[in-house]
């Protein structure tokens, strides 16, 4: 048997043709786990699909992978559709993928989870970025379908709660490929106007596919970048969209969005009225309080019986004068006694008593003579006796030792 020698190219092409003719490998679903994922700058995606025992190289061209709602990453279990062929320059066979979805959960669900995680990491849902909803918006912009249930619900709630308010509707598609871009432009337009102080972004209920525009990244960023506060009211209570997470306030339904957007006029009026009543009452209280203080002062004794103001002093004065009288009397009495005592004493010592006993007192010019040296012979002296005076003349004088 003659040897048939192939070139590398020939045999590669031969094998490639065999594969190309096989109906199975040209229209095949393969499940596996992504590894060695690489998103090339050309836009094509290169990775390996593997399971416990085997691996296969895979490629997903830009034209196909741009349709993916979710992000590919290592470890992700997927189900992919495509065909298997040989890449001649390297002689390897490859799985050329044209469609892929996550294994287990749906692609949209996964895309939602992935975008949510990504934006959350970026801080788009962070409460610090939330704008405050104004209490009394002057003009509200509503981005929604002009024909849907949402706008009807919103208008009916506003009519009920606050009839005199200004609304501007920005009509957009709310489902389908074009919707998210229109919603973005609507929000941007309302921001550019400068007279809108609140935006309601709304849509009635629907399937996850219907609500999908509200899960798009461009809308999330437009809401985040809106300087006018945005309230989202999308779908039913159980529906959560990415837009809800980024919005400054999430309402469970369009009606609820309207309710959150405008405080009930009645409630605001009640609040004002309540304040007005409390104001009157408080100032009334204040005045009553002062009047009471004034009345209290007027009732005080000073004003009621002013004489009592000095009653204490009067009493004190009385007391003092009484004490003064008493002490003067006492003093007087004690002096009287002293006088009587001294008087008695004086009486007993009086020379008159001595005179009565026969003694006399001689004096010269009123001065009692008690020595011979005090008189001169010839001088006139007075001699006092019991019953009168005798005038005499000094005839002689002699000392005691020469007494007559």
């Amino acid at each position, binding site marked *: 048997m003659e040897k048939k020698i192939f070139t590398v190219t020939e045999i590669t092409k031969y094998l490639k043709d065999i594969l190309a003719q096989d109906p199975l490998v040209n229209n095949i679903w393969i499940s596996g786990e992504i590894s060695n994922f690489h998103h090339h700058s050309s836009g094509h995606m290169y990775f390996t699909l593997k399971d416990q025992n085997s691996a296969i190289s895979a490629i997903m061209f830009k034209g196909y992978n741009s349709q993916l709602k979710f992000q590919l990453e290592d470890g992700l279990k997927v189900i992919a559709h495509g065909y298997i062929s040989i890449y001649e320059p390297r002689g390897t066979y490859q799985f050329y993928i044209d469609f892929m979805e996550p294994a287990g959960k749906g692609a949209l669900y996964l895309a939602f989870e992935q975008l949510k995680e990504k934006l959350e990491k970026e801080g788009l849902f962070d409460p610090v970025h939330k704008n405050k909803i*104004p*209490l*009394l918006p*002057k003009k509200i912009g509503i981005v929604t379908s*002009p*024909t849907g249930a949402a*706008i*009807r619900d919103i*208008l009916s709630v506003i009519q009920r709660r*606050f*009839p*005199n*308010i*200004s*609304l*501007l*509707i*920005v*009509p957009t598609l709310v489902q389908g490929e074009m919707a998210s871009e*229109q919603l973005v*432009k609507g929000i*941007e*337009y309302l921001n*550019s106007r400068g007279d809108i102080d609140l935006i309601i972004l709304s849509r009635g209920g629907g399937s996850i596919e219907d609500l999908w525009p509200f899960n798009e990244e461009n809308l999330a960023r437009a809401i985040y970048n809106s300087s006018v506060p945005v309230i989202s009211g999308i779908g039913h209570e159980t529906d959560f969209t990415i837009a809800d997470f980024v919005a400054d306030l999430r309402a469970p339904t369009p009606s609820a969005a309207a309710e959150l957007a405008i405080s009930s*006029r009645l409630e*605001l*009026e009640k*609040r*004002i009225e309540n*304040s*007005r009543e*409390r*104001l009157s009452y*408080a*100032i009334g*209280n*204040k*005045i009553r*309080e*002062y009047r009471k203080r004034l009345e209290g002062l007027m009732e005080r004794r000073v004003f009621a019986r002013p004489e009592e103001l000095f009653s204490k002093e009067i009493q004190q004065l009385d007391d003092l004068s009484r004490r003064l009288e008493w002490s003067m009397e006492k003093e007087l009495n004690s002096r009287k006694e002293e006088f009587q005592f001294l008087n008695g004493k004086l009486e007993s010592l009086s020379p008159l008593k001595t005179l009565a006993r026969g003694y006399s007192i001689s004096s010269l010019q009123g001065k009692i003579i008690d020595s011979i040296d005090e008189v001169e012979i010839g001088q006139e002296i007075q001699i006092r006796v019991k019953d009168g005076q005798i005038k005499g003349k000094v005839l002689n004088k002699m000392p005691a030792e020469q007494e007559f």
Partner: protein
Amino acid sequence: MTEKQLDFEEALARLEEVVKELEDGGLSLEKSLELFEEGVKLVKFCKLELDQAERKIEIVLKKDEDYNDVEIVPFTAEEED
């Protein structure tokens, strides 16, 4: 009047603050009357703001995708389904 520069929300907040301050008491009669007067002005202002809002429902008709040329017209129920 300084109250004119406030917006409704600030005025309402200030009003409630004034009421509280007045209720807490401990103020002089003069200060109390001053606060009372301010409160009365705020009440008037808030009521006026509530009534000033205008009922108007309009819709934007855009001539191009980028809103470079728009027309604002009244929104009527006839446009609903």
